[in-house]
């Protein structure tokens, strides 16, 4: 092992000549890995990895793991987001014994996603896709302090919005918006507290079709000018709900809709 971790220099790829088999215990990482072209290398999943075939064995989640199914899946690498209370020490010992490389990385910000892509690039036989993603991630512009302010709601009950220091907030410059919420991480809040922020746009992100109406209603009930003027946009974009490289495309795809929502609101204003 002479490759230096974190570098995405193509020549540094060391694991590429051996067979790569990956077990993913994180749906977000699964999403990024599929995006980078690793779909056929994935041999184990978590219960929540919806993008993968149901026939792939469930080998564990962020806390629990199934040693026997892991043994049968014979992964060479295992990827997971470590829980705040730390990785299960039994999993660490197990991986060590079985010679499985454990790749545990937090995915709170887009820079974390970038670090994961850089790590994954080392496993790829053809790292060009990963490098393209890294370039795109690096090209993301800084927050424009004059951009319209947005509230990004991801769950209606309880009301959960993306705060600062959150991958969704990091993605907002792609659509020329900035986050109206200043508290860090994911924030649970009430209609009133969100109304006080007086955002320019209310954005709801739904996982499925059936969540749309509720998100729409919740956003419309926020006591603020944007809601009254109808500057509300609810989209179905499950990719945006996971910190992965696919979230980049998903966000960019929203650009026309967001511009329209901002404009329609202005037109509707008396």
């Amino acid at each position, binding site marked *: 092992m002479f490759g230096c971790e974190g570098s995405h220099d193509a020549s540094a790829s060391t694991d590429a000549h051996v067979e790569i088999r990956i077990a993913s215990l994180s749906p977000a990482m699964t999403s990024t890995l599929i995006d980078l072209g690793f779909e056929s290398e994935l041999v184990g999943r978590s219960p929540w990895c919806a993008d993968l075939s149901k026939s792939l064995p*469930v080998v564990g989640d962020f806390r629990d793991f199934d040693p026997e199914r892991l043994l049968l899946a014979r992964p060479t690498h295992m990827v997971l987001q470590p829980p705040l209370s730390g990785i299960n020490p039994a999993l660490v010992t*197990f991986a060590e014994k079985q010679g499985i490389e454990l790749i545990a990385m937090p995915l709170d910000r887009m820079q974390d996603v970038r670090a994961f892509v850089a790590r994954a690039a080392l496993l790829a036989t053809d790292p060009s896709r990963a490098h393209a993603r890294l370039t795109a991630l690096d090209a993301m512009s800084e927050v424009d302090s004059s951009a319209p302010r947005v509230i990004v709601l991801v769950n209606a009950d309880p009301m959960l919005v993306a705060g600062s220091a959150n991958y969704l907030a990091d993605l907002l410059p792609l659509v020329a918006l900035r986050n109206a919420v200043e508290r860090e991480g994911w924030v649970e809040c009430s209609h009133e507290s969100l109304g006080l922020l007086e955002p320019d746009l209310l954005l709801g992100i739904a996982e499925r079709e059936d969540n749309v109406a509720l998100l729409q209603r919740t956003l419309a009930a926020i006591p603020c000018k944007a809601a009254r003027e109808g500057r509300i946009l609810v989209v179905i974009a499950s990719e945006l709900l996971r910190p992965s490289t696919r979230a980049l495309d998903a966000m960019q795809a929203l650009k026309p809709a967001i511009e329209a929502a901002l404009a329609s609101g202005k037109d509707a204003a008396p």
Partner: protein
Amino acid sequence: MKFRFALLIAIALLLALARLSVGPHADAHGVIHFGFALPTVTTIPFRLSAVLGAAVIGLLLALAGLALQALLRNPLASPFTLGVSSGASFGVACVLALAATTGLSTHAFGGEFTGALFGAAFSLMLVWILAKRASGRDAVALALAGVVLGGVMSSGAMLLEQIVPRGLRGDLLAWMAGRIPELPDPSALVALWILGLLALIVLWKAAHLLDLLMLDDDEATAAGVRLAATRGGLFIIGGLLAAAAVSFAGPIGFVGLVAPHTARLFIGHRHRLLVPSTALCGVIVVLSADLLRQGLDVGTGRLPVGVITALAGGPFFLWLLSRSRRGGSEWNL
């Protein structure tokens, strides 16, 4: 009776063997199925530690239930119904939350076991006071108080869950479902087995005292039972066992209730046979639940063992409750 006791041993051994000989296996195309799969050199340690982990949890919870039932002379007592498990969970949640907010490791606060112990002792103390007030006559009233206490403790844990950073919430929740840890630390497993077997021996040696505790206090005292010491001992054993089980596997419900009553159905009420039979029934209950969850895949991987024991134990508890409400003797099963 001896035959029935031997039967219990046989069932426990059979279940252990079954758990050792089923598991996932891959077919020629590499697709993984579940079913009969003899252990190999690589899989035997996993299956063995799963059997030992499940069995010790059953042992601890069953004996804790029996100790609490003798302590309170109440057939509805168990770590779960008295809120002792919830108290222990709350204690563990406190330790996890403290560790998360201060950024220190849980060991800085004595580890999860200390939290569980304090929480269990606190709940048990409250239940004990309530039992004294109710003079221990109305079994259902005390069980109800325990359920309420358990609810309060769970809410406390939920409150902590709101306070801790969001990333930790799922962690706490997952813990509260009750899981037997995969590949537990061998030293923890050994410690639990030592604790469980010691408790088994102590309770078995004290079987004649437990028998006499079923009589009136004066009668038992005159027959040579030192009530304060005996009840103190049962209090400590019940609390310690429940705390140990909860800190290891989370609050696995109803084992402490189902095991002693099943043993009574099988063996009768004399503690000389009831103590070891209860231990065996506890082992049987948790082993069966663990075995069931291995094969039961609803597309999301294996279910937590606590879900299965609660699904099976809940109706059992309701049945007990309806029996004791009908006015007959609650112990007359």
